[in-house]
């Protein structure tokens, strides 16, 4: 029973939630990557109810797109796959906007970078986003993203 009082202390570091503003990243599991193969990291993002972010392909030029970028690390990015946006009409827009709402996933396809030694490692990146609700907008923010990896 006593150990239950200290759940957070027992959690592995990679299960820590990452959050910035109204957007959070759900706990990320360690990714196992084998040389010569590609591997997908599927990350779940959670947006506070009532808010939307512009998608990676906003409907209007003046809107800031959501974008996931990775720093140079043990894995090389092959492709970032964003979810299909919703098109929603807001009180401030004449036509529906291309947005993400609620919970959504972004998949990054990686391959092991040349010269990376075997063993545990870490990928770091950031998700740049700009969120609004129906009446107001929040400044653009960067959500830091950490992805623990094991090179096999």
């Amino acid at each position, binding site marked *: 029973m006593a150990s*239950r009082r200290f*759940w*957070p202390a*027992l*959690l592995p570091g990679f*299960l*820590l*939630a*990452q*959050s*910035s*503003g*109204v957007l*959070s990243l*759900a*706990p990320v599991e360690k990714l196992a990557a084998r040389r010569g193969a590609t591997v997908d990291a599927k990350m779940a993002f*959670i947006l*506070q109810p*009532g808010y939307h972010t512009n998608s990676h392909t906003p409907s*209007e030029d*003046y*809107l*800031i797109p959501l974008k996931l970028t990775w720093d140079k690390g043990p894995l090389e990015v092959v492709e970032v796959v964003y979810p299909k946006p919703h098109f929603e009409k*807001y*009180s*401030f*827009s004449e036509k529906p*906007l291309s947005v993400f709402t609620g919970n959504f996933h972004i998949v990054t396809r990686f391959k092991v970078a040349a010269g990376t030694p075997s063993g545990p490692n870490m990928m770091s990146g950031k998700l740049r986003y*700009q969120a*609004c*609700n*129906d*009446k*107001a*907008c*929040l*400044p*653009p923010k960067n959500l830091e993203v950490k992805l623990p990896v094991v090179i096999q």
Partner: protein
Amino acid sequence: MVSNSSRLLAAAGLSLILLLGGCKSSKPVRAAGGSVKPESQRKQAPDFSLKDGDGRTVRLADYRGKIVLLNFWATWCGPCKIEMPWFMDFERRYKDQGFAVIGVSMDEEGWSVVKPFLEDLAVNYRILLGDATIAELYGGVEALPTTFLIDREGRVAATHVGLAGKSQFEDGIQTLLASTAAGISAGAK
């Protein structure tokens, strides 16, 4: 046991999301529209010093004696774009009665994005480039648009956070103009 551990970890993970997410995330921004406060409740609007597009320094104190609509906005803010034509209309109609609109852009990229945007909209009022200092002075300005209506004595008479109705702004402006007119008229007697 394995199943219990997994459940424990999942629950702990979820708790952490809620805990950390709750700690770091912004408070939900709700639109708040203020009608004009009684004079006794108005506080002095913080003075500031910012540059306009021509590099001239502008202070709020320069506007003492005028009714000022101070609007924080950004080029990436959809709701701000809705309000700007209203403010242009107010500037045209009330300028001669001692009223002025000041727009403070919170674009990090600066004039390179702001100037083309202003040209597209043909904005007819003064725009300044904001910074963290003015945001701090005015309570953080976490959400855009945020607009303050400032009376002739330099006091905040009304605050609007989020997209408000045109009539809400106009009612406030007219109330302040009328109170000034009443004051002048009373003083003349």
